[in-house]
C-alpha cells in the first residue's frame, strides 16, 4: 500500500525502488530457505542458486568418487541454515522498520504495528506465490523467545510511582475485567452457536468459554506498540498497560482450566473453587518467583565491581530464569518477569557502572523492539499461511461481543472503582481505557497452542482471533490518535521532573505520613513509608555495595540531574555557552532558548576558558564515579598524586575556615565523605562557574557558600561581588603549580585512578568564594 505513495522527487523514488528490490531480494531466499527439506537435497540447491542474490558462489560439487580437483570455492548451505534464516528474518524486520521512517507522512498516522502486519502479509503472500511453505509463528518460539524481552523491558522501566498509586484500579480491571470479558463473550458465543447453524452447534460450552478466555485478554505488546506513539497522559497509560500485564495470571488460569476440562467435557462444581485458589497460586507464585530471582540478581550485582563487563548479563539471565522457572510450574511467567525487573532495578542501578547501566537499557530496548517487529511480521505471515475456516456468524459475533463486553466492563467497573478513588476517572478516561483494549499476538499464540484433536474447530477460532486482532490493531490503533486529539485528552508531560518537584514531593510524602499518623489511619503513605524504612535499614545494606547504600534518594536524584546537565553542556559544544546554559538548563519556566542566542556571550580570556574546560572535564569524570573501576587494570602508584593531594588539603583547609563563618546550621562538621558526596560537591562546580552575568539577565547567579551571610541573597550585591571575584578567580586559577596543571591535562584513566584514592578527602571547595585566594 505504501507503493501508492510514490512521490515526485526522484531521490525518494530511488529509495522506494531500493526498498522494493531489497524486499524481494531478501524475501525470496528467506521463503525458500524456510521451506522444509522435503524437496530433497537437489531442488533446494537449485532454487537457492537461482534466488540467491549476489552470493556469487559457484557450485562446484560432484558426488562421484573420482578424485576431483580441490574445490576452491564451495557452497554448503545446510550447516548454516537455521542461524542464517533467523538472522535474515531479523534483518528483514529491522530494514522494514528503517524503511517506515524514511517514508515521511506514513509513520505519522499509521502506527508501526499496522505497517508491520501489512509487511507480514506481503511477505506471506510472496512466499505463497513462490510456492513454498511459509513459517508460522510457533507458539513455543513466541512464548520462549519473542515475548520475554518485551515484558522485561516493560517491567524494568515500569514507572513505579503511578503504578503503585493505581494498583487497586489496575488489579480490578485486570482480574475482574478479564473474568467478566471471558465469561460474557464465551457465554454469548455459546448461545450464538446453539442457534447458529449446524456446523456451529457442535461447539460446546467449554470450548466457547475457552475461546472467550483467549480472546478477552488485553495484549501488552499491542498496547505498548500503539500507546507509545500517542503520548497519552501517565495515568491512562499506566492503567491500560498495567492491566495488560497483570491479566496474564487470569488468562493462564482460565486457559489451563478450560483446556483441561474441555477435553473431559464438563466441569464439576468442585473445580470452581479450585480454579479460584489456582488463580491466587499462579499470580502470587509468579510474583514470588520473580521476587526471589530479583533479589538474587541484586545480590550478585553487589560483587561485580571487578567484572564490570558482564554485569548486564546477570540482569538478563536472572530475569529470563525467573520467567522460565515460573513457566515450569505453570505460574504466570509475565508476572514473574515484571516482579523481577521491578525488584532488582533499584539495587542493580546502585551497584553497576554507568556504562553497564546504559548497556542494559539499550539492550533491552533493542531486543524488545526486534521482538515486537518480528511478532507483528509473523502475525501477518501466519495470517496468509495459516489454516483458515471462515464463518461469518461466528467471526462477526465475536467482534461485536468483544467490543460490547469491553465497554460494559470498563463502565461498570469504573463506577465501582470511582467510589474508592481519590481522583476519579472521567468519562473521557473510560472511553480511552475501553478503546485501548487491544488484542494481539498472545491471543493468537494461545489459540495456536490448542491441540487440534480436542478442538476440531480450532481453525475457526484462529480465524476469528486473527480478525479481532486485525480489527483492534488496525481500526482502533489507527483511530486512537485522532480520537485522543479530538477529545482533548491530557497528554504526557514532556518535561522531566524538576528538582523542585522532587523535593516537594518528598516533603509532601513525609507530611502526609505524619497526618495519617495523627489521624491514626494506616493508609497508603503509612505503608509506603514503612516499606521505605525497612528497605533502607536492612535490604539496602545487603544488596548495595559499599557506601552507596547510605545515599539518600534525593541526593541520588540530584546527582543524576547534575550529570545530565554536565553532559548536555559538553554536548552542546558550549564552553562559551556556560554562562547561559548552566543557569537556564534547569529552568523550565524561564524563556531559555531565545535568551541564549540573543545574549552577547562574555568573551572569556583564553586562560580562563582553559581553566573552565579543565574543571568541567574533571567534574564530568567525577560525577561518573559509578564506573570507578572501569579500567580493568589495577591501580598503580601515581606520580601526580602528591600534587593532587596537596591541592585537596589546601582546599580543605580553606573550606574549614569558611565553615566557621557559617553559623546558622547546627549540623556537626565534616564527616568522612562517601565518594558520592565528594562527587556531588565537585559536580556542583559548574554552579560556581557562572561567571559575569550581565545586567538584565533574568537568571540568578547564586553564590553557593558565599562568605557573606546567607540569609539574604541580595542580587545586586551578588552581581557586583561576582564580577570582582571573577578577576580574583582568574588570577587564582592561573596560579596552579605546574604539576597540578599536568594533573589536569593527564589522561582519563589516570585521573580516575587518582580520584579513587583521593576520595577520603572532602573534595575541592567550589572556587572563588573564599577570602583567601587559592595560592600555592
Amino acid at each position, binding site marked *: 500500500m505504501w507503493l501508492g505513495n510514490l512521490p515526485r522527487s526522484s531521490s525518494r523514488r530511488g529509495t522506494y525502488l531500493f526498498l522494493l528490490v531489497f524486499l524481494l531480494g531478501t524475501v525470496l531466499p528467506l521463503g525458500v530457505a524456510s521451506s522444509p527439506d522435503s524437496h530433497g537435497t537437489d531442488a533446494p540447491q537449485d532454487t537457492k542458486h537461482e534466488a540467491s542474490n549476489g552470493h556469487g558462489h559457484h557450485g562446484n560439487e560432484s558426488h562421484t568418487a573420482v578424485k576431483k580437483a580441490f574445490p576452491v570455492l564451495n557452497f554448503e548451505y545446510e550447516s548454516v541454515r537455521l542461524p542464517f534464516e533467523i538472522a535474515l528474518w531479523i534483518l528483514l524486520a529491522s530494514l522494514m522498520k528503517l524503511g517506515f521512517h524514511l517514508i515521511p507522512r506514513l509513520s505519522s498516522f499509521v502506527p508501526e504495528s499496522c505497517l508491520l502486519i501489512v509487511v507480514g502479509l506481503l511477505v506471506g503472500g510472496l512466499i505463497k506465490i513462490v510456492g513454498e511453505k511459509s513459517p508460522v509463528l510457533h507458539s513455543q518460539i513466541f512464548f520462549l523467545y519473542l515475548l520475554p524481552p518485551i515484558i522485561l523491558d516493560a517491567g524494568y522501566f515500569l514507572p513505579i510511582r503511578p503504578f503503585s498509586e493505581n494498583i487497586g484500579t489496575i488489579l480490578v480491571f485486570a482480574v475482574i475485567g478479564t473474568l467478566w470479558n471471558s465469561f460474557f463473550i464465551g457465554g454469548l458465543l455459546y448461545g450464538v452457536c446453539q442457534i447458529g447453524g449446524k456446523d456451529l452447534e457442535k461447539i460446546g460450552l467449554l470450548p466457547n468459554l475457552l475461546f472467550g478466555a483467549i480472546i478477552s485478554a488485553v495484549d501488552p505488546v499491542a498496547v505498548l506498540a500503539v500507546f507509545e506513539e500517542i503520548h497519552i497522559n501517565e495515568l491512562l497509560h499506566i492503567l491500560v498497560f498495567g492491566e495488560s500485564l497483570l491479566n496474564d495470571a487470569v488468562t493462564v488460569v482460565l486457559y489451563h482450566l478450560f483446556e483441561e476440562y474441555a477435553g473431559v467435557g464438563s466441569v464439576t462444581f468442585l473445580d470452581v473453587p479450585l480454579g479460584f485458589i489456582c488463580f491466587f497460586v499462579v499470580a502470587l507464585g509468579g510474583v514470588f518467583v520473580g521476587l526471589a530471582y530479583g533479589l538474587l540478581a541484586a545480590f550478585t550485582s553487589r560483587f561485580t565491581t571487578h567484572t564490570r563487563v558482564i554485569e548486564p548479563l546477570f540482569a538478563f539471565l536472572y530475569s529470563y530464569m525467573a520467567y522460565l522457572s515460573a513457566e515450569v510450574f505453570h505460574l504466570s511467567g509475565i508476572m514473574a518477569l515484571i516482579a523481577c525487573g521491578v525488584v532488582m532495578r533499584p539495587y542493580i542501578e546502585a551497584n553497576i557502572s554507568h556504562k553497564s547501566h546504559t548497556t542494559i537499557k539499550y539492550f533491552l530496548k533493542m531486543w524488545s523492539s526486534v521482538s515486537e517487529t518480528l511478532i507483528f511480521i509473523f502475525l501477518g505471515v501466519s495470517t496468509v499461511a495459516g489454516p483458515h475456516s471462515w464463518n461469518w456468524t461466528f467471526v462477526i459475533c465475536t467482534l461485536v461481543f468483544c467490543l460490547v463486553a469491553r465497554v460494559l466492563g470498563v463502565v461498570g467497573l469504573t463506577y465501582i472503582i470511582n467510589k474508592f478513588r481519590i481522583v476519579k476517572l472521567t468519562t473521557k478516561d473510560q472511553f480511552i481505557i475501553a478503546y485501548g483494549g487491544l488484542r494481539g499476538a498472545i491471543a493468537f499464540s494461545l489459540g495456536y497452542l490448542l491441540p487440534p484433536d480436542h478442538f476440531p474447530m480450532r481453525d475457526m477460532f484462529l480465524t476469528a482471533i486473527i480478525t479481532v486482532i486485525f480489527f483492534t490493531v488496525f481500526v482502533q490503533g489507527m483511530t486512537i490518535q485522532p480520537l485522543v486529539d479530538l477529545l482533548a485528552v491530557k497528554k504526557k508531560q514532556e518535561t522531566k521532573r524538576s528538582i523542585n518537584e522532587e523535593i516537594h514531593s518528598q516533603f*509532601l510524602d513525609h507530611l502526609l505520613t505524619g497526618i495519617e499518623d495523627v489521624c491514626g489511619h494506616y493508609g497508603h503513605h503509612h505503608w509506603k513509608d514503612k516499606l521505605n524504612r525497612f528497605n533502607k535499614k536492612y535490604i539496602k545494606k545487603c544488596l548495595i555495595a559499599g557506601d552507596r547504600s547510605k545515599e*539518600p534518594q534525593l541526593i541520588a536524584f540530584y546527582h543524576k540531574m547534575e550529570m545530565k546537565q554536565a553532559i548536555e553542556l559538553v554536548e552542546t559544544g558550549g564552553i562559551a555557552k556556560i554562562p547561559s546554559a548552566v543557569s537556564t538548563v534547569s529552568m523550565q519556566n524561564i524563556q531559555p532558548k531565545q535568551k541564549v542566542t540573543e545574549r552577547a556571550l562574555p568573551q572569556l580570556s583564553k586562560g580562563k576558558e582553559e581553566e573552565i574546560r579543565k574543571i568541567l572535564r574533571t567534574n564530568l569524570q567525577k560525577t561518573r564515579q559509578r564506573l570507578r573501576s572501569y579500567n580493568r587494570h589495577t591501580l598503580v602508584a601515581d606520580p601526580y598524586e602528591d600534587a593532587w593531594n596537596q591541592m585537596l588539603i589546601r582546599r580543605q583547609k580553606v573550606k574549614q575556615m569558611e565553615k566557621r563563618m557559617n553559623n546558622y546550621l547546627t549540623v556537626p562538621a565534616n564527616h568522612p565523605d562517601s565518594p558520592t558526596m565528594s562527587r556531588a560537591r565537585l559536580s556542583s562546580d559548574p554552579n560556581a562557574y557562572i561567571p559575569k552575568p550581565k545586567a538584565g539577565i533574568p537568571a540568578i547567579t547564586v553564590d553557593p557558600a558565599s562568605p557573606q551571610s546567607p540569609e539574604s541573597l541580595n542580587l545586586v550585591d551578588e552581581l557586583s561581588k561576582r564580577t570582582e571575584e571573577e578577576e580574583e578567580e582568574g588570577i587564582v586559577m592561573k596560579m596552579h603549580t605546574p604539576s597540578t596543571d599536568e594533573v589536569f591535562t593527564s589522561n582519563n584513566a589516570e585521573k580516575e585512578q587518582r580520584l579513587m584514592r583521593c576520595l577520603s578527602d572532602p573534595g575541592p571547595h567550589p572556587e572563588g568564594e573564599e577570602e583567601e585566594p587559592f595560592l600555592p
Partner: protein
Amino acid sequence: MGATGSAVSRVPGADEIQKETGFSSAHIYRLYDRFQVLDKDDNGVLSRRDLQSIGELAVNPLGDRIIDAFFPNGVETIDFRSFVRILAHFRPTEENRQREPNASEPLNSRNSKLKFAFQLYDQDKDGKISRAELLQVLRMMVGVEVTDEQLESIADRTIQEADLDGDGTISFEEFKKSLEKVNIEQKMSIRFLR
C-alpha cells in the same frame, strides 16, 4: 454505626464543623474518637505533648513542623474544632463544587492545600521561602550523611528553578507554579477523610 445520631451530638459544635469543613457526620465522629484517644489528660483540648506522644511522628523528619502546624500563632492547646479544621485540608477535593458567590475557599481546595504546605516551609511567615528555610527543610529530610555544601547547592538549584521574579526566595505563587504538574489533589488527600 447505628448510634451515629446520638454520638455526633456528643461532639461539640458538630454542625458548624460540618459546614466549615465539609466532613460528613461519620467522619466527624471518627475524628472525635481519635481526638479523645490523643487527649491524654482528657481536658477536651490537645497540647503539644499529646501529639508528640504519637510514636510515628517522632521518627518523621517533619514531625516537629507538623505538630507546629496544629498550633498556629503560638497557641498552647487546640480544641476539636481547630483539630478538624487542620485535617480538613487533606480531604479529597470534589471535582464540581457549587460555588456560592461569597463563600470562602473551601479548606480542601488545591490552593488551600498548597498554602498549608507552604506554611510548613515558611516558618517566619513572611510569605516567602528563603534559602535558609529551604536549607532547614532539606537538612531535616536528608539526614546527617550529607554535607552542607551539597545541600547548599541543592537549595540554590531549587531556588534558581523556581524563582521567577529573581528575588532569591520562593513566594507562594512561585511555589504553586513549580508544582503545577504535580497532582496535588491526589497527593495531598487521605482517603479516610472522604
